[in-house]
């Protein structure tokens, strides 16, 4: 999608509109986001009822449930997607039109250009964006908590319940949970570091 708004020949106002929307939506998280999704895709949400009454499709009979893993992923994607657009667009702007022309002069198809030229150039930025997204959703708390009410046990929700002390109260365990998250993040950063080094290998030659 970001490729469409940079390399595609869309009029400039569309790009501005999408970027502005991305800026707003990527910060739209937490309780408001959870409410927005309950109001649209919850059991009596707008879209759910629309599909049910007009198109006779019952989402919840088809196995969809907003308060499940898939539903939570969908909700997270709502702010992850615009964030990725925001961080990847500058990198896509850096793709020079000359490279594509050169590749096509040498007989490459558009798909070949994307796979053999654009993707290797963009790989470090894409990986960087993905690690940002991973950290972003790994640390999200309010969205998951207000959407599922603790029905899905994320680590952040667990830390919250250990520290707030409604039923469970063990701050020490909360601290240990947080250290565990730090360790997982360090592992992810290490994987990212090696993947990035691998994807940048051709640059140093």
């Amino acid at each position, binding site marked *: 999608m970001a490729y469409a708004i940079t390399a595609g020949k869309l009029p400039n106002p569309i790009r501005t509109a999408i970027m502005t929307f991305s800026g707003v939506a990527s910060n739209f998280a937490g309780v408001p986001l959870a409410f927005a999704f309950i109001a649209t895709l919850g059991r009596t949400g707008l879209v759910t009822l629309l599909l049910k009454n007009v198109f006779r499709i019952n989402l919840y009979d088809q196995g969809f449930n907003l308060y499940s893993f898939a539903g939570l992923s969908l909700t997270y994607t709502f702010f992850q997607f615009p964030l990725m657009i925001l961080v990847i667009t500058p990198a896509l702007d850096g793709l020079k039109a000359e490279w594509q022309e050169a590749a096509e002069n040498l007989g490459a198809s558009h798909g070949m250009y994307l796979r053999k030229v654009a993707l290797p150039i963009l790989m470090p930025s894409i990986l960087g*964006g993905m690690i940002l997204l991973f950290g972003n*959703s*790994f640390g999200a708390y309010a969205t998951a908590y207000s959407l599922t009410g603790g029905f899905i046990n994320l680590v952040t929700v667990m830390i919250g319940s250990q520290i707030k002390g409604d039923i469970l109260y063990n701050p020490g365990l909360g601290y240990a949970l947080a250290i565990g998250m730090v360790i997982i993040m360090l592992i992810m950063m290490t994987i990212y570091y090696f993947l990035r080094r691998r994807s940048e290998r051709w640059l140093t030659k």
Partner: protein
Amino acid sequence: MSNNNLSIIHEKRDALDARPKHSTLHNWIGVVPFFIFTALFIILPSVTLLVHAFQDNDGKLTLMNFIGLLDPSILNAYWISIRISLTTALVAGCLAS
């Protein structure tokens, strides 16, 4: 002789010499808020986190907190967290770019 003259002119035109050699104190003041912020809100909490993780509720040293991490429900929570983060990062990352 003429060669010598040329080199003098060359040195005079060297733009690198025109720049100040070291960053001045003035420049450092600008980044001080950043270091104060990282120290107060990243480094300090991380250290407290690390220290408290090894203490029980009375402040005595213990490893019980980490043994408590091996509880199935907690391991499950970690697994769900990792899965959901990976899913959303990969899906959003691929679709958005």
